[in-house]
């Protein structure tokens, strides 16, 4: 490894392989002693060509593909897609199916935020909180497993409805699990707002003002911690959220502590929502029939993923395959804020600031083909993209 020295400053590379990052991304951090003077991010190490692959598969197959964009928030991706396709086909799932969709989405939010809580605590060097929050995460994983049979890719959605139903035994298991979780979450809220040493690492660190959050286009809990009331479940209620509106959790400080508090309070709010859905759960069929081919049309779908706004654009062309599916995940919206906040902070705070947005790198990697020599517009086919990928990993990087 060569040392890049310019005066008193040198560059610390973080990633694409680094203990702080469980996914590949490259951050070049220029430091003067311990103070960061410049930061640069390079994404794109985990491009998988999913959007292109979606064009090669029929509507049903595409749903299973899109569910695999994110390992943590798989359900919200398929929810966005299913709602979009149902809108295109002009049908609507039954109220019971909608309620179960929202229920699984809220369980997923709890599971995602608890995972984040552990990771963020680990980045700050508080391993005990990491271990305990992941232990408690098991209870929500057990609920999801009982509901759908799977712990990670629940595959609860279908075009036109859901796959799994809730009977009285499951109802009871969910309520019991949530009761336990609520107690634990209150305890964690107490820890992150009162533990003196942990507060040294979170209070007043990585402060993003309301103005900055708006200019940088932050979304989700990251924005809400800076007092920006951006919440798709309230702004543009979809599925069941019209009947069961969530309360927007806002914090004013915009520092890391606020991001911890927002996420933990959101989990408590999710527990309330789930209990309400269980009380309300309307009877009815689980699925409605969706046509095989969908007439040419296009639509957008916005949903609130655990990390923030998830945006889907879906275009149909009258066949049984989508013409185009475009996904924008929340991490890419929040990434600019990391680079902005990193400058001027301490090197030791970089991992926590990065973890503060709850990054999910492989979800946001896209590629665009730009032909600078020729003037013709050029769109690759799936086969060309595949061949390029094979050539690239054999070392021919042209």
């Amino acid at each position, binding site marked *: 490894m060569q040392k890049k020295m310019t005066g008193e400053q040198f560059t*610390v590379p973080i990633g694409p392989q680094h203990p702080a990052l469980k996914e590949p991304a490259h951050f070049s951090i220029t430091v003067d002693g*311990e103070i960061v003077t410049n930061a640069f991010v390079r994404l794109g190490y985990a491009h998988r060509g999913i959007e292109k692959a979606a064009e090669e598969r029929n509507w049903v197959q595409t749903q299973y593909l899109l569910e695999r964009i994110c390992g943590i928030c798989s359900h919200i991706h398929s929810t966005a897609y299913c709602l979009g396709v149902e809108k295109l086909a002009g049908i609507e799932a039954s109220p019971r199916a909608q309620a179960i969709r929202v229920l699984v989405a809220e369980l997923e939010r709890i599971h995602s935020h608890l995972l984040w809580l552990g990771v963020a605590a680990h980045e700050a060097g508080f*391993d005990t909180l990491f271990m305990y929050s992941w232990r408690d995460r098991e209870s929500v994983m057990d609920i999801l497993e009982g509901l759908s049979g799977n712990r990670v890719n629940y595959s609860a959605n279908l075009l036109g409805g859901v796959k799994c139903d809730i009977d009285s035994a499951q109802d009871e298991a969910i309520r019991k699990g949530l009761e336990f979780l609520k107690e634990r979450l209150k305890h964690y809220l107490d820890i992150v707002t009162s533990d003196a*040493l942990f507060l040294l690492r979170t209070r007043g660190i990585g402060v993003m003002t309301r103005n900055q959050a708006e200019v940088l286009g932050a979304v989700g809990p990251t924005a809400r911690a800076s007092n920006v009331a951006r919440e798709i479940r309230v702004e543009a209620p979809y599925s069941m959220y019209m009947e069961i509106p969530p309360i927007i959790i806002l914090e004013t400080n915009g520092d890391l502590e606020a991001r911890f508090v927002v996420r933990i309070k959101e989990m408590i709010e999710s527990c309330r929502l789930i209990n309400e859905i269980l009380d309300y759960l309307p009877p009815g069929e689980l699925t409605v029939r969706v046509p095989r081919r969908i007439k040419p049309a296009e639509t957008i779908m916005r949903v609130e993923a655990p990390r923030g706004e998830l945006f889907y654009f879906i275009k149909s062309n009258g066949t049984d395959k989508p013409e185009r599916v475009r996904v924008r995940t929340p991490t890419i919206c929040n990434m600019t804020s990391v680079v902005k906040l990193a400058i001027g902070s301490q090197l030791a705070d970089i991992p926590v600031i990065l973890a503060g947005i709850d990054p999910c790198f492989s979800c946001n990697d896209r590629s665009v083909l730009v032909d600078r020599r020729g003037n013709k517009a050029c769109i690759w086919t799936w086969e060309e993209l595949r061949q390029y990928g094979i050539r690239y990993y054999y070392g021919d990087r042209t």
Partner: protein
Amino acid sequence: MEIARNLIALLFFPSGLFLLAAGMFYEWVDRKLLAQYQNRIGPRWFQPLADFVKLLAKEEIIPEGSNPYLFIILPVIALAGGLTAALYVPVFGVPPAHSFNGDLIVTIYLLSLLTLCMGLAGSNTMDRFSLVGATRTLTQLFAYEAPFLLALLGPALAAGSWQIGEITIYTSQRWLILTQPLGFIVVVIGLMGKLELPPFDAPEAETEIVAGALTEYSGRGLALFRLGKGVELVVGLTLIAAFYLGGVSNPLFFLLKTLALLLVIAGLQALLARLRIDQTVGLWWRYGALLVLVQWIFMIGGRMIL
């Protein structure tokens, strides 16, 4: 006969093999306790030994741009420092193998040798993570060293001697933790700083700088450094137990008192989040040094009144 006795003391007991085994045992107890506090299962009893054997068997890579002699000799010096320090300390509850007037100061500096060697090892390589880690290691050394030294001199002042053997005779009838509680707090936390245990693990914060100063070390060098830390843990615990907890006059007391101390230290590791290096320095000079000075003022004031 004298030579044989010295050789046994150096190579087998109390320093040497016995101490190495004890170092591994205490490392395991520490890891197991921490795991239990964190709701994990923790390693099995032979894990430190297995790690050591594995590291010895591994290829040692000497990175380009570093001085190879220094790279190899530094871990040896670090371990030797810890083993030598054990000769002047009543480890395992037996009187020190060697003793002379002022050996307390020598012991404390032999214990610092490990940190110095790690700092040098980090700055010897061209790796940026090592360089940042080495800077942090040495910065931390300057932070805790003075309060730690002053806190260990408290019992010496009370006993009126700078010889560990004489101090332990004085402390074996008195629990100095009762008369010098502030010094005890500083010395325990100082030992945690010395061993770079959480919350003072900024020099090897894995989420920022991978493994800090030792990033480039693999195989034998890493094994020796880790062993050195284990030895230092035992020697440090012995010193604190002997000075503050009513002495370690027999092996049973030694075991009970050092393990009780380790219980406290592991608990603190589980409770506290990592401090940034500037916060560590601030903590030591703002509170650590102050606490020790208050302790000293009380002691000297008490003497003048009596």
